[in-house]
Protein backbone atom coordinates (compact mmCIF):
# COMPACT_ATOMS: atom_id res chain seq x y z
CA UNK A 1 0.00 0.00 0.00
CA UNK A 2 2.64 2.49 1.05
CA UNK A 3 4.87 1.38 -1.79
CA UNK A 4 2.08 2.08 -4.28
CA UNK A 5 1.54 5.54 -2.87
CA UNK A 6 5.25 6.26 -2.96
CA UNK A 7 5.45 5.13 -6.56
CA UNK A 8 2.50 7.36 -7.49
CA UNK A 9 4.09 10.38 -5.81
CA UNK A 10 7.34 9.82 -7.63
CA UNK A 11 5.60 9.52 -10.97
CA UNK A 12 3.01 12.33 -10.67
CA UNK A 13 4.83 14.59 -8.18
CA UNK A 14 6.48 17.00 -10.64
CA UNK A 15 3.32 17.41 -12.70
CA UNK A 16 1.56 20.70 -11.87
CA UNK A 17 4.60 22.55 -10.55
CA UNK A 18 5.22 24.19 -13.93
CA UNK A 19 1.59 25.25 -14.06
CA UNK A 20 1.78 26.75 -10.60
CA UNK A 21 4.95 28.67 -11.37
CA UNK A 22 3.59 29.95 -14.66
CA UNK A 23 0.25 30.94 -13.07
CA UNK A 24 2.10 32.88 -10.38
CA UNK A 25 4.37 34.58 -12.91
CA UNK A 26 1.44 35.46 -15.17
CA UNK A 27 -0.53 36.82 -12.22
CA UNK A 28 2.37 39.04 -11.14
CA UNK A 29 2.97 40.27 -14.67
CA UNK A 30 -0.71 41.01 -15.22
CA UNK A 31 -1.07 42.92 -11.95
CA UNK A 32 2.07 44.97 -12.63
CA UNK A 33 1.22 45.74 -16.24
CA UNK A 34 -2.39 46.67 -15.50
CA UNK A 35 -1.27 48.90 -12.61
CA UNK A 36 1.28 50.61 -14.85
CA UNK A 37 -1.31 51.08 -17.58
CA UNK A 38 -3.93 52.54 -15.24
CA UNK A 39 -1.39 54.88 -13.61
CA UNK A 40 -0.16 56.07 -16.99
CA UNK A 41 -3.71 56.62 -18.22
CA UNK A 42 -4.53 58.68 -15.10
CA UNK A 43 -1.32 60.65 -15.52
CA UNK A 44 -2.16 61.45 -19.14
CA UNK A 45 -5.71 62.48 -18.24
CA UNK A 46 -4.38 64.76 -15.48
CA UNK A 47 -1.79 66.32 -17.80
CA UNK A 48 -4.44 66.99 -20.44
CA UNK A 49 -6.81 68.44 -17.85
CA UNK A 50 -4.10 70.76 -16.48
CA UNK A 51 -3.14 71.85 -20.00
CA UNK A 52 -6.80 72.49 -20.87
CA UNK A 53 -7.31 74.47 -17.64
CA UNK A 54 -4.34 76.68 -18.48
CA UNK A 55 -5.64 77.14 -22.03
CA UNK A 56 -9.08 78.12 -20.66
CA UNK A 57 -7.47 80.60 -18.28
CA UNK A 58 -5.43 82.29 -21.00
CA UNK A 59 -8.46 82.43 -23.30
CA UNK A 60 -10.43 84.20 -20.55
CA UNK A 61 -7.44 86.41 -19.77
CA UNK A 62 -7.16 87.41 -23.43
CA UNK A 63 -10.87 88.28 -23.58
CA UNK A 64 -10.57 90.32 -20.36
CA UNK A 65 -7.52 92.15 -21.72
CA UNK A 66 -9.40 92.96 -24.93
CA UNK A 67 -12.33 94.36 -22.93
CA UNK A 68 -9.98 96.39 -20.72
CA UNK A 69 -8.18 97.82 -23.75
CA UNK A 70 -11.52 98.66 -25.35
CA UNK A 71 -12.65 100.44 -22.17
CA UNK A 72 -9.36 102.33 -21.82
CA UNK A 73 -9.43 103.52 -25.42
CA UNK A 74 -13.04 104.64 -25.05
CA UNK A 75 -12.17 106.47 -21.83
CA UNK A 76 -9.19 108.28 -23.38
CA UNK A 77 -11.25 109.23 -26.41
CA UNK A 78 -13.65 110.83 -23.99
CA UNK A 79 -16.50 108.51 -24.86
CA UNK A 80 -18.99 107.51 -22.27
CA UNK A 81 -18.22 104.09 -20.92
CA UNK A 82 -21.89 103.49 -20.31
CA UNK A 83 -22.23 103.18 -24.06
CA UNK A 84 -19.94 100.19 -23.85
CA UNK A 85 -22.14 98.52 -21.29
CA UNK A 86 -23.30 96.12 -23.98
CA UNK A 87 -20.08 94.25 -23.20
CA UNK A 88 -20.88 91.13 -21.17
CA UNK A 89 -21.27 91.69 -17.44
CA UNK A 90 -19.65 95.14 -17.35
CA UNK A 91 -20.78 97.11 -14.32
CA UNK A 92 -20.00 100.79 -13.84
CA UNK A 93 -20.00 102.69 -10.57
CA UNK A 94 -18.57 105.89 -9.10
CA UNK A 95 -16.47 106.11 -5.93
CA UNK A 96 -14.60 109.19 -4.65
CA UNK A 97 -14.69 110.79 -8.07
CA UNK A 98 -13.22 107.70 -9.71
CA UNK A 99 -15.04 105.57 -12.19
CA UNK A 100 -14.98 101.89 -11.22
CA UNK A 101 -15.58 99.30 -13.88
CA UNK A 102 -16.11 95.65 -12.97
CA UNK A 103 -16.65 92.75 -15.27
CA UNK A 104 -16.22 89.01 -15.32
CA UNK A 105 -15.17 86.58 -18.00
CA UNK A 106 -16.02 82.91 -17.48
CA UNK A 107 -12.96 80.64 -17.36
CA UNK A 108 -14.90 77.38 -17.17
CA UNK A 109 -18.09 76.06 -15.59
CA UNK A 110 -16.88 76.76 -12.08
CA UNK A 111 -14.59 79.78 -12.33
CA UNK A 112 -14.78 83.33 -13.54
CA UNK A 113 -12.01 85.86 -14.14
CA UNK A 114 -13.14 88.87 -12.18
CA UNK A 115 -11.65 92.25 -13.10
CA UNK A 116 -12.01 95.59 -11.35
CA UNK A 117 -10.63 98.69 -13.06
CA UNK A 118 -10.44 102.24 -11.87
CA UNK A 119 -10.46 105.23 -14.25
CA UNK A 120 -9.21 108.61 -13.16
CA UNK A 121 -6.33 110.30 -14.97
CA UNK A 122 -5.33 106.85 -16.17
CA UNK A 123 -6.62 103.31 -15.95
CA UNK A 124 -5.57 101.28 -12.94
CA UNK A 125 -6.13 97.59 -12.39
CA UNK A 126 -7.49 97.14 -8.88
CA UNK A 127 -8.25 93.46 -9.16
CA UNK A 128 -7.63 90.73 -11.72
CA UNK A 129 -8.36 87.37 -10.18
CA UNK A 130 -10.01 84.03 -10.76
CA UNK A 131 -12.97 83.44 -8.47
CA UNK A 132 -15.48 80.63 -8.12
CA UNK A 133 -18.49 81.40 -10.29
CA UNK A 134 -21.04 80.23 -7.76
CA UNK A 135 -21.02 80.83 -4.06
CA UNK A 136 -19.88 77.83 -2.07
CA UNK A 137 -22.37 76.61 0.45
CA UNK A 138 -21.38 74.05 3.04
CA UNK A 139 -23.49 70.92 3.20
CA UNK A 140 -25.12 70.86 6.61
CA UNK A 141 -27.13 67.70 6.30
CA UNK A 142 -26.49 64.15 5.31
CA UNK A 143 -29.06 61.88 3.81
CA UNK A 144 -28.96 58.53 5.51
CA UNK A 145 -31.31 55.60 5.35
CA UNK A 146 -33.64 55.65 8.35
CA UNK A 147 -34.78 52.08 7.91
Amino acid at each position, binding site marked *: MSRAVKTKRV*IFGPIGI*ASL*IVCFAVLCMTVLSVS*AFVAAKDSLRDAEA*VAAARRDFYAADLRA*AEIAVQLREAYYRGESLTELSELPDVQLSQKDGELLVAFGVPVDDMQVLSVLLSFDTEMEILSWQVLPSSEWSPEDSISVWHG
Partner: protein
Amino acid sequence: MRKRSAALMMLLELAAMLLVFSLCSAVTIRLFSAAHTMTARSLRIGAAADLAQTAAECYRWDGDAEHAARELAAVWDADGYRAELVRDGEMFTVYLYPQEGKLRISVWVDGENLYEITVGAI
Protein backbone atom coordinates in the same frame (compact mmCIF):
# COMPACT_ATOMS: atom_id res chain seq x y z
CA MET B 1 5.08 2.31 -19.98
CA ARG B 2 3.59 4.25 -17.09
CA LYS B 3 6.79 6.26 -16.67
CA ARG B 4 6.73 7.16 -20.33
CA SER B 5 3.15 8.37 -20.12
CA ALA B 6 3.98 10.50 -17.07
CA ALA B 7 6.95 12.02 -18.86
CA LEU B 8 4.76 12.76 -21.85
CA MET B 9 2.19 14.44 -19.63
CA MET B 10 4.90 16.58 -18.06
CA LEU B 11 6.14 17.54 -21.47
CA LEU B 12 2.63 18.40 -22.60
CA GLU B 13 2.10 20.51 -19.49
CA LEU B 14 5.34 22.35 -20.07
CA ALA B 15 4.42 23.00 -23.68
CA ALA B 16 0.95 24.26 -22.70
CA MET B 17 2.36 26.49 -19.99
CA LEU B 18 4.97 27.85 -22.36
CA LEU B 19 2.19 28.75 -24.76
CA VAL B 20 0.14 30.41 -22.01
CA PHE B 21 3.20 32.27 -20.76
CA SER B 22 4.04 33.49 -24.25
CA LEU B 23 0.51 34.76 -24.84
CA CYS B 24 0.34 36.52 -21.49
CA SER B 25 3.81 37.98 -22.01
CA ALA B 26 2.72 39.43 -25.33
CA VAL B 27 -0.32 41.04 -23.68
CA THR B 28 1.66 42.44 -20.74
CA ILE B 29 4.40 43.76 -23.02
CA ARG B 30 1.74 45.58 -25.02
CA LEU B 31 0.29 47.01 -21.81
CA PHE B 32 3.73 48.17 -20.62
CA SER B 33 4.41 49.67 -24.02
CA ALA B 34 1.10 51.56 -24.02
CA ALA B 35 1.80 52.77 -20.47
CA HIS B 36 5.23 54.00 -21.54
CA THR B 37 3.77 55.84 -24.53
CA MET B 38 1.08 57.50 -22.40
CA THR B 39 3.58 58.52 -19.70
CA ALA B 40 5.88 60.01 -22.34
CA ARG B 41 2.94 61.93 -23.83
CA SER B 42 1.79 63.26 -20.47
CA LEU B 43 5.36 64.46 -19.76
CA ARG B 44 5.47 66.11 -23.18
CA ILE B 45 2.14 67.86 -22.64
CA GLY B 46 3.23 69.09 -19.20
CA ALA B 47 6.56 70.38 -20.50
CA ALA B 48 4.89 72.03 -23.51
CA ALA B 49 2.33 73.74 -21.27
CA ASP B 50 5.11 74.93 -18.94
CA LEU B 51 7.09 76.42 -21.82
CA ALA B 52 4.02 78.14 -23.22
CA GLN B 53 3.14 79.48 -19.79
CA THR B 54 6.66 80.86 -19.30
CA ALA B 55 6.40 82.79 -22.55
CA ALA B 56 2.83 83.86 -21.78
CA GLU B 57 3.68 85.27 -18.35
CA CYS B 58 6.66 87.19 -19.77
CA TYR B 59 4.41 88.72 -22.41
CA ARG B 60 1.62 89.51 -19.95
CA TRP B 61 4.13 91.31 -17.71
CA ASP B 62 4.92 94.13 -20.13
CA GLY B 63 3.29 93.26 -23.45
CA ASP B 64 6.70 92.93 -25.05
CA ALA B 65 7.12 89.89 -27.30
CA GLU B 66 10.86 90.45 -27.36
CA HIS B 67 10.98 90.00 -23.59
CA ALA B 68 9.29 86.60 -23.92
CA ALA B 69 11.64 85.71 -26.77
CA ARG B 70 14.69 86.66 -24.69
CA GLU B 71 13.46 84.53 -21.80
CA LEU B 72 13.31 81.48 -24.07
CA ALA B 73 16.48 82.40 -26.00
CA ALA B 74 14.39 82.58 -29.17
CA VAL B 75 15.58 84.02 -32.46
CA TRP B 76 13.59 85.84 -35.13
CA ASP B 77 12.55 83.48 -37.90
CA ALA B 78 10.35 84.58 -40.85
CA ASP B 79 7.15 85.82 -39.19
CA GLY B 80 7.88 85.15 -35.52
CA TYR B 81 10.37 84.06 -32.93
CA ARG B 82 11.56 80.45 -32.72
CA ALA B 83 13.23 78.76 -29.76
CA GLU B 84 14.51 75.20 -29.57
CA LEU B 85 14.67 73.86 -26.06
CA VAL B 86 15.40 70.43 -24.60
CA ARG B 87 13.12 69.16 -21.86
CA ASP B 88 13.24 65.59 -20.49
CA GLY B 89 15.62 64.66 -23.28
CA GLU B 90 13.28 65.83 -26.04
CA MET B 91 13.54 68.77 -28.38
CA PHE B 92 10.69 71.28 -28.08
CA THR B 93 10.26 74.05 -30.63
CA VAL B 94 8.44 77.12 -29.36
CA TYR B 95 7.07 79.63 -31.87
CA LEU B 96 6.05 83.11 -30.77
CA TYR B 97 3.95 85.06 -33.26
CA PRO B 98 3.43 88.68 -32.19
CA GLN B 99 0.09 90.10 -33.30
CA GLU B 100 -1.60 93.37 -32.50
CA GLY B 101 -1.86 93.41 -28.70
CA LYS B 102 -1.54 89.64 -28.62
CA LEU B 103 1.03 86.90 -28.75
CA ARG B 104 0.30 83.47 -30.20
CA ILE B 105 2.45 80.78 -28.63
CA SER B 106 2.77 77.41 -30.25
CA VAL B 107 4.83 74.47 -28.95
CA TRP B 108 5.84 71.69 -31.33
CA VAL B 109 7.41 68.31 -30.64
CA ASP B 110 8.30 65.81 -33.36
CA GLY B 111 6.28 67.67 -35.97
CA GLU B 112 3.16 67.78 -33.78
CA ASN B 113 1.61 71.01 -32.55
CA LEU B 114 1.24 69.91 -28.96
CA TYR B 115 0.08 73.09 -27.27
CA GLU B 116 -1.10 76.48 -28.44
CA ILE B 117 -2.37 79.51 -26.59
CA THR B 118 -2.89 83.15 -27.36
CA VAL B 119 -2.25 85.75 -24.68
CA GLY B 120 -3.10 89.39 -24.53
CA ALA B 121 -1.52 92.30 -22.73
CA ILE B 122 -2.93 95.59 -21.61
